[in-house]
């Protein structure tokens, strides 16, 4: 088996909530609460979960765009949470990110040329002509043309902008790209274009992706392994086929059954969850899912289940598979 390119151990990110008479901290949002996983070189790890479950925070913490509260992040065996700003800055050419919103993630006042050549410049490509060449090359790689370079982002459609974002991420030949919902703002017909492009690029440049999305079909389509998050925690992580064919965690099951399928012939036995996702500032005790879980047991209210490998390469955090039940 390949070496992991990225290892995340016990990652936590708590945001302070301020209030009260002195504006002191009166609580915290546990956006990411003890998440661990690793990503192999060349693989695509998908992360799914409902809105607010901490997917983006996980992604940004890995790149230290948000400083994690606790835990370690190892990139190519180097522990990066302890790096100085300058060391981190240098390392960034190897780790990139693509954002969800193709409108907000490009500087509206820069030309495409400038947007894509900037990372080149800051990582040492001082020659203007060289940069121009590279920009053209990158544009073509993502399916745009050299003449697009002189335009501004507002002159492009959503899909095209996402391509520009990808070109920018590719500029310095990174090894790892965190994709934070890169296609969820796009229309179906464009979404498939981008998904295909990303797959091609992975093969072409031997990239590793952490692919964040809330659309299970999309994640399934693109990933090798998939992790499911709920309320800041990873509840299940395994190969995609295993996950979709044999989901272990009740939440995963509910999630899968809730996806409407564009096929009138598929008969589904629906498992409709009751209620809403609890607030991450006040997550339920024990297993965070126990308030909505149809299979909840007494132990679920009190003990937080361990995230354990219950089968080969299949991690689940659920008491159904823990020693308590077995």
């Amino acid at each position, binding site marked *: 088996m390949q070496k992991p390119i990225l290892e995340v151990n016990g990652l936590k990110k708590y945001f302070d909530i301020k209030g009260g008479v002195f504006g002191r901290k009166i609580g915290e949002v546990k956006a990411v609460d003890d998440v661990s996983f690793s990503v192999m070189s060349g693989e695509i790890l998908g992360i799914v979960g409902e809105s607010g479950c901490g997917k983006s925070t996980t992604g940004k913490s890995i790149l230290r765009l948000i400083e994690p509260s606790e835990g370690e992040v190892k990139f190519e065996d180097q522990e990066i949470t302890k790096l100085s700003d300058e060391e981190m800055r240098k390392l960034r050419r190897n780790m990139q990110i693509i954002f969800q919103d193709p409108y907000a993630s490009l500087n509206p006042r820069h030309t495409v040329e400038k947007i894509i050549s900037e990372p080149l410049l800051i990582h040492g490509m001082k020659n203007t002509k060289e940069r121009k060449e590279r920009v053209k090359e990158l544009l073509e790689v993502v399916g745009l043309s050299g003449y697009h370079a002189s335009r501004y982002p507002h002159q492009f459609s959503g899909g095209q902008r996402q391509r520009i974002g990808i070109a920018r991420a590719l500029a310095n030949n990174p090894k790892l790209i965190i994709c934070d919902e890169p296609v969820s703002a796009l229309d179906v017909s464009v979404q498939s274009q981008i998904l295909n492009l990303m797959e091609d690029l992975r093969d072409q440049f031997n990239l590793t992706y952490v692919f964040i999305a809330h659309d299970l079909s999309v994640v399934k389509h693109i990933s090798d392994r998939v992790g499911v998050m709920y309320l800041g925690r990873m509840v299940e992580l395994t190969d995609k086929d295993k996950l979709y064919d044999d989901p272990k965690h009740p939440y995963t099951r*509910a999630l*899968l059954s809730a996806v409407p399928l564009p096929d009138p012939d598929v008969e589904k036995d629906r498992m409709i969850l009751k209620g809403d996702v609890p607030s991450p500032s006040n997550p339920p005790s024990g297993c965070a899912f126990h308030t909505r879980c149809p299979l909840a047991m007494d132990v679920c209210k009190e003990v937080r289940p361990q995230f354990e490998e219950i089968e080969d390469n299949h991690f689940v955090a659920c008491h159904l598979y823990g020693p308590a039940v077995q």
Partner: protein
Amino acid sequence: MTEEILKIKDLHTHFFTDNGEIPAVDGVSLSIKKGEVVGIVGESGCGKSVTSLSIMQLIPSPPGKIVSGTIDFKGENLVHASNKRIKQIRGNEISMIFQEPMTSLDPLFTIGNQIREAIRIHQKVSKKEANQKSVEMLKLVGIPRAEEVMNDYPHQLSGGMRQRVMIAIAMACDPEILIADEPTTALDVTIQAQILDLMKKLNEEKETAVLLITHDLGVVAEICDRVVVMYAGQVVEEGTTREILKDPRHPYSQGLIRSLPKLHEKDQKLYSIPGTVPKPKMGMVGCRFRDRCRFVHERCYQENPELFSLENNRLSRCFLSDDAEGKVVKDAEANIGS
């Protein structure tokens, strides 16, 4: 076969902006029968919302205006109805819910106030009666602790709850038609499942006709009887849900369905429609989809395709559906489709 309560004929709704006239809805025709669930699907900007707002006479004016066409609601043309009449119809006979449950409720008034308002606009009832009715409605849409929620403000509720409240408001006067503009797009899948379930239930119990607007074919498959596919301000295909999903005739519908990643199928390279949706503009000649179409031929540049009738009352706006060319379709598909 039951009667058609809403018939839209050749509707043209244009926006008159600084950058010229935009034909957002360009000759749309569709109809809904009593108790039926009709879906409108299509990509962003194809005119779904404008169509639905046109029915409600809620097009922001200026810059929008219904240029021509009729919207026939039980024999009455809404396009020319008086303001007073429109107010009577809105929320009472036809009501509407919107995509963003987060912003569709007035943040400064309690839930109770806003439902009550919907009732008292149309019914001469006391505040108390209206209150009772409101609580009933909240219970109907499955809100727990309905009495308490009456005194809550929108921000105290989750997105799913808010969408339920919106449905409660819309259903408060027992409308004959409920127009739902992407009611679940902003919600998580687990919540979406809840809402769709609720809408299906209401449709069955109250026999309310539903016009459901969405871009998610999955949602359509879930609850619609009939589907209208829109592209660039026009209807391009119409038929029953099963027909459209299983046997799409228009190249656009075909492409759309094939480009979806499938949850229960083995991986294969996704199909993708090349290019992007054209921006609507005046005086376009020819098929709007031609630049992205794999069956494009000369005629697509010269004529505007009409909605050709197919078997089972199906419609498709493609020359390939023209009888004369019917064969070509089959052949072409046989060639490329596999």
